[in-house]
Every structure is written in C-alpha cells, then in structure tokens.
C-alpha cells in the first residue's frame, strides 16, 4: 500500500481498516441524534444524502457515550472517541503512544527515507517510494534505494546480471548504442559507410547505416523519415529511399500510415488533441487545466479540499468525509468524528451527554432489556 503522509509518499505494509459494525435487533426506535433544522446547503460533498444519516434511529440501538472497540478519547484529539487506536500515528495502540518520526533524518543527520506508521495498533516502518528496508533493521530505516541498487533492484533481493544495471528499479542495459545485446556497441551513425559496405546513400534518400533488428551497420531510415512506399532498395540502389517525413506529419505520425484523427496534431511522433480542437470535445467542462476555455487553470485547493472544473467553471469541493459547516468557506468539519457534524453538517450526536461520532455515525449500543 502506498500512502502520502506529510508530503512524502510511503510504501507501507498492508493496513487493515478498522470497521465498527453495530448489531441490530428489533426494538422500538429511539432518538440517537438530532439534525439542526434548515441547515443551509454548503459545498461539502458528503451531505446527508450521501453518507449514512447519523440522525436516523436504528432499531434495537440506544445512544451511548462508550467508545466502540478500538476507539478511545485521547487528550490530543478534540473529539470523544475520536482516536482510532489501530491507525493513529500519535496514539498507536494506546493514547499518547506516538510512532517515532524518521521522516527527516537520523541523529547523524542522514536521511533514512522512513516513517513509522501505526498499523493494526503497532508502530511499523514505512518507506518512501524508491526505498526499502532490506536488512530488517529499523535503526537504519529504509537503507536501500531500490531504483538503483544492483543487488536490490525494484525490490529487496533482485540482482541485476552484468552488464545490465538497475535503472529506475528495473534491470536494464545502460550502455549507450547497444545493438541487439547489451554491450554490443555500434556507432549511432555511420558516415561514410563502414568497411565492407556499399557507398553512402544519396542525401535525398534520408537513409544511413545504423543498428537495425539487433545488428549494426544495417541500411536504415534516418530518424523522422520513413519508407512509406516500400521501395527502399539499398542493394539495387533504386527507389526514393525514405521519402516520407514521419516526424510531425499528421498523416504519417511517427510511422507510415499512422494518421491522426480529425483535429489532432502531430508535434513529433504521437498524435495529440490540442485544447480548442473539436476532438477536445467536452473536456473543457471538466479539465482543471483548461476549465471553460483553453489555458484557464483552476486554483489550488486548500486543506481537505479539491479543485474541480464543474461544467466549465472552477469550483472547490470538500474531500470525502470533510464538510464546510461554518460561516467560513473552507472544509473544516471532520464528518467522521465531529459530534456536531456527524456524517453531515449540523447532525449532532447529543442524544445523551458525551455521545461520540465514529465513522460518521453517532455511537450506539444494543439497548438493555427493560
């Protein structure tokens, strides 16, 4: 699993999500929460119609101020039962148990590329993308850069066989001008022709001798040109060689006969649909880089928000499980744990004193027999 924490992306072990499930038995309904009447609409996405409505009574369930299993009320969290002890890095397993922060550096000021994360109630080592803990020692963090380590390429224990090298986490040939096999080097261009080959091709043929089909010194079209009429005859010296420009030609974009669709352009060797072209279609209604018109980029969103292009107009909406419930235009309310906005703005967990909001629902437990 990959998680983004504090601006860094970490590779983590499998994180099991805590699930709180209420048992349901038939019983008279009781009030477990209240909804503030006439709450004005806001741009929180998970409104009451999307999230489970915390104010809806559930049969057999009575309000409680007891935390469900795995949750606790901790001093460093503003909400009752607001801490999930299985995943809270500041309260891992128990209140106040903070997983060590390896984010920046070791005491020797060496970047350990690591962060301790709370997984299943225990602190576990997590690594930045591209790094791994291959020796199992927490003390030296994620000591291996798996993007370039020949003995741990891509993952711990994967060794690259020479002359291959570890390139971006994969064993690959890193010797320039290799032809066919890694290390079989031939020059990128041969002008004039190498020994034992024919004379140079006419300039207008746009051809030379180069690596082709794994062999050096093969008659080939120069980059950006193609033999689209199939008459390139390097032996008989007939035909017009590599007569077609395939770099930038929308009718032969990167290859002979590769025609771009209507409205597309061929800036190099790939067809591209530019904004403003008919092929761009309705993308200006949803593209945050071209919202409503080409070159109108929507601004960056703030905390717990995301920028969207809503039918051609830039807008901001709250991240899932967050809401804009006050007079300030932001997404300040944690709809998962705020007892004043539980599952939606204005839904209060106030059926009894101390009732909490857990996973967007006011806490309940099975009613006691009368």
């Amino acid at each position, binding site marked *: 699993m990959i998680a983004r924490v504090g601006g860094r992306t970490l590779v983590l072990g499998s994180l099991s999500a805590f699930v709180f499930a209420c048992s349901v038995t038939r019983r008279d309904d009781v009030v477990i929460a209240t909804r503030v009447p006439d709450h*004005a609409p806001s741009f929180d996405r998970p409104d009451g119609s999307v999230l489970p409505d915390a104010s809806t009574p559930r049969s057999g369930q009575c309000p409680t101020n007891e935390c469900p299993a795995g949750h606790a009320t901790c001093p460093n969290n503003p909400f009752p039962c607001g801490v999930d002890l299985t995943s809270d890095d500041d309260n891992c397993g128990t209140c106040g148990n903070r997983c060590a922060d390896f984010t920046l550096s070791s005491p020797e000021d060496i970047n350990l590329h690591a962060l301790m994360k709370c997984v299943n109630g225990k602190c576990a080592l997590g690594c930045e993308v591209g790094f791994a803990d291959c020796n199992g020692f927490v003390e030296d963090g994620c000591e291996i850069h798996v993007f370039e380590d020949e003995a741990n390429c891509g993952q711990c224990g994967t060794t690259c066989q020479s002359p291959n090298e570890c390139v971006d986490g994969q064993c690959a040939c890193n010797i320039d001008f290799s032809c066919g096999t890694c290390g079989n080097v031939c020059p990128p261009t041969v002008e004039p022709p190498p020994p034992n080959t024919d004379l140079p091709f006419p300039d207008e043929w746009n051809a030379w001798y180069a690596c082709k089909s794994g062999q050096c010194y093969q008659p080939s079209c120069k980059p950006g040109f193609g033999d689209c009429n199939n008459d390139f005859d390097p032996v008989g010296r007939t035909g017009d060689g590599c007569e077609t420009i395939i770099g930038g030609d929308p009718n032969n974009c990167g290859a002979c006969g590769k025609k771009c669709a209507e409205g597309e352009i061929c800036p190099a060797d790939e067809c591209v649909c530019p904004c403003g072209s008919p092929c761009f279609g309705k993308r200006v209604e949803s593209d945050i880089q071209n919202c409503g018109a080409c070159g109108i980029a929507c601004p960056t969103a703030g905390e717990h928000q995301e920028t969207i292009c809503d039918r*051609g107009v830039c807008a*901001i909406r709250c991240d899932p499980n967050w809401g804009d419930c006050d007079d300030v235009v*932001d997404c300040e309310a944690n709809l998962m744990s705020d007892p004043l906005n539980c599952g939606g703005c204005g839904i209060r967990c106030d059926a009894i004193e101390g009732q909490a909001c857990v996973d967007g629902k006011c806490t309940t437990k099975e009613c006691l027999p009368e």
Partner: protein
Amino acid sequence: MALATLTAASVPLACASEGEHEPEPGVEPATAPDGSADARDTDDGGGATSDSATLDAGPCSSSKLCVAAIPTDETVRLTDLWGSGATDVWAVGTRGTILHYDGATWEKADPVAPEGGAGFTLRSVWLERPDDVWIADGHSIWHGTGWKGPHASDWSFVVASEDEPAPTAIRGRGRTVFIARSMRGANPFYSIQGWLSATDGWTDAGLETIPIFAEYFLTFNAIAVSRQDEAWALADVFSSEGYVYRIGRPSDPASESPWQVEEYDFKSSTRRALGVWGDDSAVWLVGTKGLLRRITRSAVPSKSFEIVESPVRADLHDVFGFGPADVWAVGEASTVLHWDGNAWTKVSTPFDHLNETERPTFESIWGSSPTDIWIAGDGTMVHFDGGAQ
C-alpha cells in the same frame, strides 16, 4: 490579440427539448416578493405546454416564478443573462451556448466559435442596444450586431493569447464598456495577472481598450456599472480572499488616466463576493454563504460596505434590482431572495419540492422591468412577470 470575424454556420438545432427539467408544480408555501405571507398557490402549472417554447411553459411557484421552456438540456449551465429590453434578452453558458428571447420564444444560436475556441464556456453577456452585443468566454471577446435568428448572427472576435489574462466579465453603459480579465493559472506560460480595462466601443477596426487596473493573481467574478461614471468589480485570489473595487473618475483632475480604481471594504475576510448590482441610490454585493452587503450613495466616501442580515447561508451568485426597495438575489439550490427596502426574504421557486442537492443553481438574474425578470441557471430558465395572468 488577434481579430477575426465569423458568421454562424447553418447547422440545424441539435435539440429543442421543451419541458425538460420541469418539476412538479410549486407546492411549498412561500413568501411573495413583496415580503408578505403568501398562501399556497392555486396555480397547478396547467399553463405548461409541451409543444412550444413559449413564455412560462413550465410550472410556477406561488411567488409567480415560472419555469420557461428553453432549447437546451439540463446539463448546460447558463452562466449569464442580459438584455436590451423585454423582447431582446440573451443568455449564455457552457458548450458555447447562446440563447435569445424575442418576447415569445427562446431560441438557440447555431454553434459559433472563434479560432481555437470550440465549445468553451461563455461567461458573460452584456448589451444595452439590440445591435451592440458583447460576450466574454475566457478565450475571446465577442461582439455581435444583434440577433438575426438562430442561423445568422454575425460575430467579431478578439482572441486573447494564453499569456494574456482571460476575459471573463463585461458590462457597460452608454459608450463605455468595462472588461474584466482574470489570471489563468500556475502554468509559467499563462498570465498570472487580472486586468480591468475600458473601451469606448467596438469599431470597424476592432477593439481598443484603455488599461485601468492590474494586479497579480486576481480572478474577476463580476462587474457592474452603477452610474455613467462608476462601476464595481469583484475579484478573488485563489478562490479564497475576496476583493471589491470601485471604478470611478479620478479625484485628481491632473490624472492621466480617465478612471481610478479603489479597493472597498466589504467586511469579510473569509467569504467571496460573486455578484454586484447598483444604481444611483445604493450598490449591493452578494456572495458565498449568503453574503449580503450594501453601500448607500452617501456612504461611498467611507469605502466600506455595511452588513445586511441574510435569511440564507447558501451561496448567492448574482443580484439585480430596480431601485432602493426592489432588489433580487439568486444562487445555490435555486435560492431566490427579494429586498423590499427593509429586509431580504426568501422567495418560493418551482424547484422547492426537490431535495436541496437536486435544485439547480441560479447563476444570473436580469430584468427589463419589475414585472419582467429572468433567472438563468443550471439547465434552467425561470421568469417572473409580477403575477400577471
């Protein structure tokens, strides 16, 4: 800038789906625009017709707001609305949508696009005379010589390059037209400035503008002309900090610029002003979270708007009025408010029976008179005729 002229291609209307997005007749008891308590409407919406796009073809609310038939589907967002009179009303929106009302029927113009601008969101339309129509679409400034039917309108364009701010709002009075342009974004090749400029009108040679204001990172939401010598512009920075600017004649007679721009305090650091309207007596702002602000003429020198109590917390997108005791505001979740000179009251709409999240947002309001008011929004058009039968 590049100047070009195009004539609308003769493309058949894509669709003319009358009656789309028509909810059930208004069922909510409501308050009439005059603020008085209003009994449940006895109009059952029976006036709705399905065979023509005539005025008030849809259901009506108890406040006499009626859904009008328009030849667009509900996925088109109508962003702005303006007219020169009761028989010459224009609305614009997403996908290059242009609608025109001739006093009887809303028609849709054939698709027209300046170079490289197909399907863009038309953001602003303004006209004072039938033969002098202005549109801004974030890509270009359009100028038209009037409605000549859905297949024949003539348009000229000034296309803004990506290193120029995007034209987003146009309003004017008499010979003077104000144009607001917004920053484009973080791309290093894009403009990151907002501009205000003025022009004495479109000429055969094109558009010549006088720059009157520029500031980094500004996105202009609206502009309004309250008097011949005064306009107001609303802007924000990254959808958070809001700004209100007054455009007036310079206090220094020796000033080289014919216009002077001053920032005004609208008493909100956290909300944004989205709509503005004013006349000689007062200027009104509406905005996010039900923001309502007013500055009376005598208070203009104070450079500070007063807070006016709002009956809603919904975002308000536009405001329009006819004097000190007849002002309307519209916005999110089909919100319609009316000011009677003393207080704002909520007005019932034909969408009140829908869940709040299903009600279309009203984006723009304009009227030719107190008894002829149009409201445009997400796939819908609503008309108020003052209760005339």
